[in-house]
């Protein structure tokens, strides 16, 4: 997408909301191509996301901002999401986004990415899947893993809050063993599914398990994962974004919860394939990272 395409019709300028005018006047997308876009610019580069509609203090809302701030080429990025809390945010995002069905996100993303490669052979277009743990680990597991097997050039990000939050707090495959949630009234009977290990086994070239406690770490992972997906093959990030409502925390306690989990269920796991490692080294030398 050409940056200067985002022009307001002068006839309508006087009735446009302030943020739309800001979008035209202050867009920084073009600059982002020269130097890595990052967390530092978040307060004043709001062209992709300004408001959100999640609960106050929701770590998912923060993590989404980190992801959007880290996109290497937002004006050529398409995000495919799935049903759940994240799907409430996507109407606010100034990118082409798709909500299709619950669980089919990696299949839809596959179709989009392959057709964009066909239609625009000379333009790098990034396709990113962003879905919750229910969509990724349970209902969409087949389609997620199959896209890894097929070596699709897409980045899959799972916002893992270990619960079906949007439907009111039911156990998911990512819920830790023993946790009492709805549909698990006596506690979950089996272990949390280690989706990051499955992703590595299934052929991802860059896999991480982490929390969203450190914004810069999330941004770095997102950027590296997208660059690797573009050139080499599928990548997967599992990011803990706790549902503070369902685990009984208040709005200011999300960060503390993520920090605690940095040392526990979300202790850093990172896999980078040899090809991806070599490629990332090259990216660093070229100043893309």
């Amino acid at each position, binding site marked *: *997408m050409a940056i200067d*395409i*985002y022009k307001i019709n002068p006839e309508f300028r006087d009735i446009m*909301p302030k*943020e*739309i005018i800001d*979008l035209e006047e202050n867009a920084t997308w073009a600059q982002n191509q020269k130097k890595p876009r990052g967390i530092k610019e978040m307060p004043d580069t709001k062209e992709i996301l300004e*408001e959100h*509609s999640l609960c106050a203090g929701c770590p998912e809302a923060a993590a989404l901002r980190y992801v959007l701030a880290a996109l290497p080429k937002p*004006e*050529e*990025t*398409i995000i*495919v999401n799935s049903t759940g809390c994240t*799907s*409430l*945010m*996507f*109407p*606010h*995002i*100034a*990118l*082409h*986004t*798709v909500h*299709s*069905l619950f669980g*089919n996100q990696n*299949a*839809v*993303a*596959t*179709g*989009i*990415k*392959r*057709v*964009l*490669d*066909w*239609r*625009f*052979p000379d333009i790098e*277009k990034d396709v990113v899947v962003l879905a919750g743990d229910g969509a990724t680990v349970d209902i969409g597991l*087949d*389609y997620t893993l*199959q896209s890894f097997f*097929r070596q699709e050039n897409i980045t899959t990000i799972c916002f893992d809050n270990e619960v079906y939050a949007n439907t009111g707090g039911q156990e998911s495959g990512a819920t830790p063993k023993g946790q009492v949630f709805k549909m698990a009234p006596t506690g979950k009977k089996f272990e949390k599914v280690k989706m990051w290990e499955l992703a590595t086994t299934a052929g991802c070239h860059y896999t991480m398990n982490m929390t969203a406690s450190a914004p810069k770490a999330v941004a770095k992972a997102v950027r590296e994962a997208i660059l690797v997906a573009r050139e080499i093959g599928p990548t997967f990030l599992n990011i803990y974004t706790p549902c503070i409502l369902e685990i009984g925390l208040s709005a200011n306690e999300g960060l503390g919860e993520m920090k605690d989990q940095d040392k526990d269920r979300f202790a850093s796991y990172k896999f980078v394939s040899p090809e991806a490692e070599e490629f990332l080294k090259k990216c660093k030398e070229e100043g893309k990272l």
Partner: protein
Amino acid sequence: MASIKDMTDTHNWSGQKLVTADHMLFEAPREKHFMTGSEVLKEAVKRCTVDASVSYPITPQSEAAHLIGELWAEGYVGMYFRGENEFGVMAEVAGCAMAGARTITTTSGPGTLRAMENFPQWSGTRIPCQLILMARGINSPLTIQPDNLEVTFMLETGCMIWYAENVQELFDMSIAAFIVAEKPDVHVPIVTVVDGFFVSHTRESVMLPADDIALFPYEPYKAPLPPIDSETPPGRFLRDPFVMKSNYISYATHASWQWEVRSAVERSRRYAKHFLKGLVHVTGSEDAEIAFVTCGTASHQAKEAERELMKHGIKSKVIKLRTIRPFPKEELLKELEGVKHIFVPEFNVVGWLEKEVKTALHNNHTANIVGGPRVAGGMSLPAEAILKEVFEHINVEGK
């Protein structure tokens, strides 16, 4: 493999001369060939400048799906792969079409039902992709035989549904289907149905235009919704994610969108009328008091029954419905003028076509409607069975 960069104003990426659908369907000289439904579908796709196809095997459509794969290997189709199952395939097809591709896939019976959640999503997203449905039984115990019960599940998905009788119709319809589905004021998915095995596996003579011509490509920027390709600016104008909210605006939006999808299907009538040369085709005696209302291969059997009845001195006619969605109510009523007995022979146990006919005729027509004969599970529908049904009912009424 093909490259879109080889496309010019006059030729597509595989070097075929670009022509209009009118030229392809009505003007280009044709030659006689002898082939199956699966083979003829390959020939149709070859002439349609198709960007993308995703496949998954299931009896009896597998051959059609892998023949499209051959077209990809030969450079006629832009992108092709085998998906993981029908739910995945229909989601992949949605992705392809949303990203601006002319897209086709095929499935049958249980595959259709596995993929079902996708079809209303397809129409809701207003993608003009084409599904070739080779109808097959869906009952348990496992059957792979012809039976079109699955079509009843597709009727209210918001997709257009056309029904081809034979190999020739499959060729012409599947070409016209892309063009009608892609009209900006229509722009909904289209399901082209044939009866599995009877059409997919039967070799018939068929008239085909040369294969050095192909349809002009799909133009995604004429779509009512912008393609998901980051080429047009996204509108971040939505201050509330109304889709999830429980309020009147949300309900009204969903309701009006569903009406709009159905209206789009209705708006396809005039295009379908042109490219299909009418939404119904009639054979037999114009002044007959007995009519068979049919679709698919049941039409063929009914035509045979019509000829047999003629030998007994009984006039009848066959009204073949070529579109099921939109349902050709007006055309049907017109052809039924003066008809006293309507028979609806079908390849399923529930009689979905009979229900459709009865709904259309309710309070509009006084003819006696007989839902039958019906066969299912792979049984054939001999003309004798149709004759028996006719004689039983005519005798009952003392004629």
